């Protein structure tokens, strides 16, 4: 009786452990966004810069900071946000040149087997 109970109980964790590996539930899903990627980091910085801007706005409207402090704060957060945008722009250009390089290589290998994507149309 006890043995039977033991077996029944142990079936539950066994199934839970085995199922994800057998069914490959995680591999079958798309790869999740990486929280440590450059983009995620830039996104966090962008949010905190905008939060800072809004905060400065609030403090000013409420009357907690004087004009000169407000302008300084605004400038600082604007610059921070601008840096994020610039970094993003550079990363996009990097990506562009990477795609160009790849497509060039592809053309050399087989000029006709590489179908023109929408993206490439834009690039050209």
């Amino acid at each position: 009786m006890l043995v039977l109970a033991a077996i029944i109980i142990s079936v539950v964790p066994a199934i839970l452990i085995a199922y994800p590996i057998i069914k490959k539930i995680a591999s079958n899903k798309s790869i999740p966004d990486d929280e440590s990627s450059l983009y995620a980091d830039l996104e966090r910085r962008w949010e905190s810069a905008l939060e800072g801007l809004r905060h400065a706005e609030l403090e000013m409207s409420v009357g907690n900071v004087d004009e000169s402090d407000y302008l300084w704060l605004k400038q600082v957060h604007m610059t921070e946000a601008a840096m994020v945008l610039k970094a993003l722009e550079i990363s996009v250009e990097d990506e562009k040149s990477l795609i160009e390089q790849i497509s060039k290589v592809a053309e050399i290998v087989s000029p006709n087997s590489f179908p023109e994507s929408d993206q490439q149309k834009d690039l050209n």
Partner: protein
Amino acid sequence: MVELGQIALILSFMVAAYSTVVGFAGGMLNGRDLAASARWGFYSISPLLLLATSSLIYAFVTNDFSVKYVAENSNLAMPKAYAWVAFYSGNAGSLLYIAVAFSIMAGIATRIVNSKLPYTSPYALGVMSLVLLFFLAVILFLANPLDRHQIPLEDGQGMNPLLIHFGMFIHPPFQMLGLISVALPFSIAIGALLAGRGGRDEWVDQGRLWGMLSWLLLTTGLLLGAWWAYTILGWGGYWAWDPVENSALMPWLGMTAFVHSIMVQKRRGMFRMWNMVLIIVSFAMAQMGMFINRGGPVPSVHSFAESTMGWIFLAVMAATLFISLSIFIFRYDTLRSRSGLDSMISRESAFLAQNVLFLLIAFITLWGTIFPIFSEAVDDTTMTIGQPFFNKVNGPLMILLVLLMGIGPVLPWRKAGWTSVNKMLRAPFVVACGVLLLSLISGIHQYWVLISFVVCSVPVTTVVQELVRGTRSRHSHGENWGLSFLSLLGANRPRYGGYIVHLSIVMLAIGITASSFYDVQKDVVMKPGDSEVLGKYTFTYIEVSEKSFPDRTEETAKFEVWSGDKYIGYMYPYRAVYPEFQIAATRGAIHSTIIEDFYLVPSEFMEDGQAVFRVLINPLVLWMWVSGPVLVLGTLVSISPNSRKHKKRVRLPSVNIDQNPLGMAN
């Protein structure tokens, strides 16, 4: 039934071991299926442990005294409702309670962390499973509540009568929950360190969320403990700086520092190392709390669950500290601040000062708590340090913290010029002067009380000022007053929730100050028919009635109480004697008003019908108990997900290759 529980325990131990190994492996090998398997396995632990728990409770309910733990903590006379209390009143059972509670919380945390931080989560899960594994190992190999006696017993020894009380249902569960829940933000932080993929701020949101929840549980546990001590244990006080109280206070101090300084990392990318150190230290202190409660080396009134196992906790605490600090040093390079400090007068530096003060108080508390060990080692005398020392040393530091609580939140991030500071602190300064003047006029001449009240007025003024200014600003945009107030609170919940918490802390501080400096205490000997007067209260001792129970005799005194010429009614303080345990438990009777408590407690009933009573008037104690719900409300407001903001969350402008919303020239 108990055997079923044993099986469940062993199984959960095995699954926890599996989750630990496979969780870390999944993280390191980037095996997403492995990590999922570890996670799903982990989810199965809490039902297993719930099964073990219910089998133990079943043994209590059915009076199965062949189970050692049941025999030690229960008897036939025990009311059945207390089976739940008996479950965690002893050492082994409390460990099982901690394990089951942690497995549930960690399961929920894992689910959420996994959706937000998919790459950190396998490591965080590994750390959580490791923590759980430790508890399960201790339960299985050292203190198994489900073990049976060789020879079944007729009746058990019974629970410590001091624990048979309604308060046992709420204070210990919250306290234990609070202590173990520190492991959640700790696991997430260490997980992020281990994942170590260059990122440093990704764990901040989750760390803050679980840190706040843990802080909330710790605070609730402490306040409930104080409330219980005051209303039930009947010595007229609520906090005695007892070692166990101290060891519960220390992680609270650490976590309070943490939930504040994590904001700096979120906003500025600073304090990255500091936050890591804080959460590591807080977890170590939480372990210390569990260690001292489990028959540690320091004598305490809370030593209900005494055993030698404390030393294992100490060793594990040392190992935890060592390993996590090693990981920290190993990842040191990735934790440099993103930006520097712009000015000494800024929110950041206020947070820094606050952090250091909290840690200092924690350190002094630790020092006072372990002083008996120190003096024993150096001088061969066990010098116990008590209340007066802590009040004298920590009191002023706490007042300083209240002052910071008033100034810090209104300092802007980054930098504030003197004109801004002047703008924000003029009103608090004026009000503080007013308070000082009024206090002096109304006859408060105690040095520390004056300082405390003046300081308490600062956070109140700044919060009110913020709310008034914010509401007015919104009102001027056309919203009506009520609406603009609510939308102000809703727009920035972390901030205004924090303000509500700050107000509750001020209430607490005022209650503590007033009741520790202006309490009146008197011991009176009375016989039935006697009347006495204390302050405006007149109380008449009418009679004493004795009632016998199987396990105790209760002597209940009946008093008729008048406040001035206002009739209050009867009050029934009583004293119960448990001959088997040689313990007497007293229960005070309290008449509580918003201004003061009138407190009656019997100390001794003598043969000749005379009795000794202790009578106290404690001012403003009710404020302390009211501050609790306010604090919970504020915390919940500040962690409530901001749904509106979430919808309108400012995304990065999408810079796609085929479209260019920035209007940048190509």
